[in-house]
């Protein structure tokens, strides 16, 4: 039988310089820039006007995205654990109502709590955050302890919280808020809050035990448990924080609008999930970054603002938005398959 040998001394490629793979953010950022440039070009052709060279428009766009962005950051960490949160839009509405009712000024005769007017801004803020967090704790407990699938648990919360928001004042809007309180939503403050939240959670997910456990649970819950992680407690915490951020979004939204209304934040949960998924967060769990979500939110914002600028009907905007979400999920699945096989 033939014997072949090949005995050169070889050095394994482990020592070769490694081509660093580009982080996913780079490709998402490229998409963002591409879309913005597309609107710029089409803008010149169709309207003879610049899309980007308009600070006013850009500010409005970012302001609009800030509230969804705050929610999306909470949703991102939920999706990283392998879950989903459908309740954030409704929780936003509920907290907006509760917050607004505690931020009314005494100039107004029909306050929800006539005895509780002109409270310092910190009180409505704190109560708003608390209501949001409480909704999150309920979500998390249903998921972690009652073993209800996240989709169902948060769907229930989505319906109930919206109902509660309506029942709170029988569907009446709550207006005439103190100036002290509305300051929270004035000017560029929502943007600053959004970016602040983004920085905090970028750091939390990357450099804290909380973040590392979040990824581990999403990647393999059984292995996470065997590695000494209290998976249930951690899940409750993750959903609580998502609720807290939805609460914060509710505070900012009511402060900015100067009113609380039960219809606020309708379908925001979907925009938030879309921002996360477009930003590279995998619905399979274990993968995702805050930076990606921020860019994802900006992509949604640019789309919205661009279509409005071009005068495209809102119905068509939704059609395109839906297509983009589906495309993002397809990209995610392709990435997953690649991860499995290369």
């Amino acid at each position, binding site marked *: 039988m033939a*014997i*072949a040998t090949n*005995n050169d001394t*070889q050095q394994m490629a482990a020592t070769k310089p490694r081509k660093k793979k580009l982080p996913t953010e780079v490709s998402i950022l490229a998409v963002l820039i591409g879309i913005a440039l597309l609107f710029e070009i089409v803008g010149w052709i169709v309207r003879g006007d610049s899309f980007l060279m308009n600070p006013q428009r850009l500010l409005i766009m970012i302001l609009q995205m800030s509230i969804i962005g705050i929610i999306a950051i909470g949703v991102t960490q939920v999706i990283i654990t392998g879950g989903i949160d459908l309740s954030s839009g409704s929780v936003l509405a509920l907290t907006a109502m509760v917050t607004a009712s505690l931020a009314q000024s005494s100039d107004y005769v029909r306050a929800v709590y006539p005895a509780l007017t002109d409270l310092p801004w910190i009180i409505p803020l704190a109560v708003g955050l608390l209501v949001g967090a409480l909704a999150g704790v309920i979500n998390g407990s249903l998921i972690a302890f009652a073993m209800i699938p996240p989709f169902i648990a948060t769907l229930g919360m989505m319906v109930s919280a919206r109902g509660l928001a309506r029942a709170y004042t029988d569907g009446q809007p709550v207006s005439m808020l103190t100036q002290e309180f509305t300051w929270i939503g004035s000017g560029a403050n929502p943007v600053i809050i959004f970016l602040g939240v983004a920085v905090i959670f970028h750091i939390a997910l990357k*450099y804290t035990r909380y973040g*590392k456990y979040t*990824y*581990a649970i*999403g990647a393999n819950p059984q292995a996470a448990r065997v*590695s000494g992680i209290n998976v249930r407690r951690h899940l409750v915490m993750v959903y609580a924080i998502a609720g807290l951020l939805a609460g914060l979004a509710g505070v900012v939204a009511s402060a900015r609008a100067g009113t609380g209304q039960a219809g606020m934040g309708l379908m925001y949960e979907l925009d938030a999930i879309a921002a996360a998924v477009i930003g590279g967060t995998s619905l399979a769990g274990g993968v995702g970054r805050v930076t990606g979500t921020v860019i994802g939110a900006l992509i949604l914002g640019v789309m919205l603002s661009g279509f409005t600028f071009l005068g495209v009907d809102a119905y068509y905007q939704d059609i395109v938005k839906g297509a983009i979400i589906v495309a993002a999920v397809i990209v995610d699945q392709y990435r997953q398959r690649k991860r499995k096989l290369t």
Partner: protein
Amino acid sequence: MAATIDSASSPQASTQYLLEVVNARKTFPGVVALDNVQLRIRPGTVHALMGENGAGKSTLMKIIAGVYIPDEGEVRLHGKPLQLNGPLDALEAGIAMIHQELNLMPFMTIAENIWIRREPLNGLGFVDHAALASKTQALFDRLGIDLDPEMEVRQLTIAGRQMVEIAKAVSYESDLLIMDEPTSALTDREVEHLFRIINDLRAQGKGIIYITHKMDEVFEVADDISVFRDGQFIREAPASELDANEIIRLMVGREVTQMFPKETVPIGDVVLSVKQLGLEGVFEDVSFDVHAGEILGIAGLVGSGRTNVAETLFGVTPATSGTIAIDGEETVIRSPHQAMLRGLALLTEDRKETGLFLSLSVLENMEIAVLRDGYTHGSFVSQHQLDQQCEHMKQVLHVKTPDLEELIGNLSGGNQQKVLIGRWLMTKPRILILDEPTRGIDVGAKAEIHRLISKLAGEGVAVIMISSELPEVLGMSDRIMVMHQGRVTGFLDRSDANQISVMQLASAPSAASA
């Protein structure tokens, strides 16, 4: 869909070989996994592939099975070049593969798993469940497998799942069957069973590629051997022309020192004392002590309850009866978290299910169990310190990876196992439980890991080691506890333990008990 077999381009197809791979090359970012590799399989033979962890064996097999497309080179079946665009092409061409990692659907039955995508249909186009069950039963009868086809796969032990994978691969009736470390989770009894199946297939003229790190198996089944090192083909020869030392020398490129370098160390006080431990319906009345510096081996057949005892000690499945005492103090362990606080560590048997975080990096996989200890400031992790410690572990254990940022799923099976060993060593446990610690690890690295375990015992760690490899248990343990069907059948001292005495206790319940 179909594999294209282009006969025109190979005028003088040599039919002497069932399969030929010529000049195969495959690179991944930062890694040349295979470089100018060849392989030739004769029909009716078993061809063993040998090489260290990360040598490229699984990668080469995945090329043959259509999972990877090679950068360069050619695969020829019956002398004709093969163009594979996916695993289904390979199956159609007559190549089936048992992957190193098990790939069954846990919530489907055994029968459904085996015939997936090939389910027998009834007249209305629905799956014919009766036919499905009877086909599976016929297959199991032929192979001598004693499992209920209607059982869900998640209820099976790893060994059971492995047997199902084997049956599934055989059911394709392929000409070439690839087995990538099929025995890493099997005890001797199932290994023998597998060899009977292999001999049968060989007699039918099929070609079998067999990957293992167990040297004795190679000489028992293999006709030919090909050795690989660092992505290069080193040598092919009939098994009769090679001996174990020669193979190791070819694999490693240097001499490997003695296996099982057991050091005799002073045995200290009792650290862990288990009394009448039980888990309802699984095992009962398990009592033993482990001393500081002692290595207690646990032997037994698959299903004897060894793994369950380990998982119960570690709080994965909390005990339903009995007591656990650490340093003489009774304690309750209801979760792995509590177990770790009490100084325990458990390397689990099932790498994929309970070990790896496949979407995370090598670093993130290694550091996860120490994020509470000295590596944190408040809630923040001391990443720099962690990086250093993980880098150190990587070097001690010779983990082959371009860097710590690499996704763990991209490492070879043996190297993934090393990362998990590193994860638990980093916790600096006082009681270290190892369930199949060297599963899938090559001979050279195995000796290193045995040395490491011995060293830890020397430092006063109490070690409990479960292994299906008898020589490993015999070579490393100070004492061996043998189990059979959820009960302890006896203890053997190092001096009394041998293949026969262990197997006697493992297969038949005996009166001897501690």
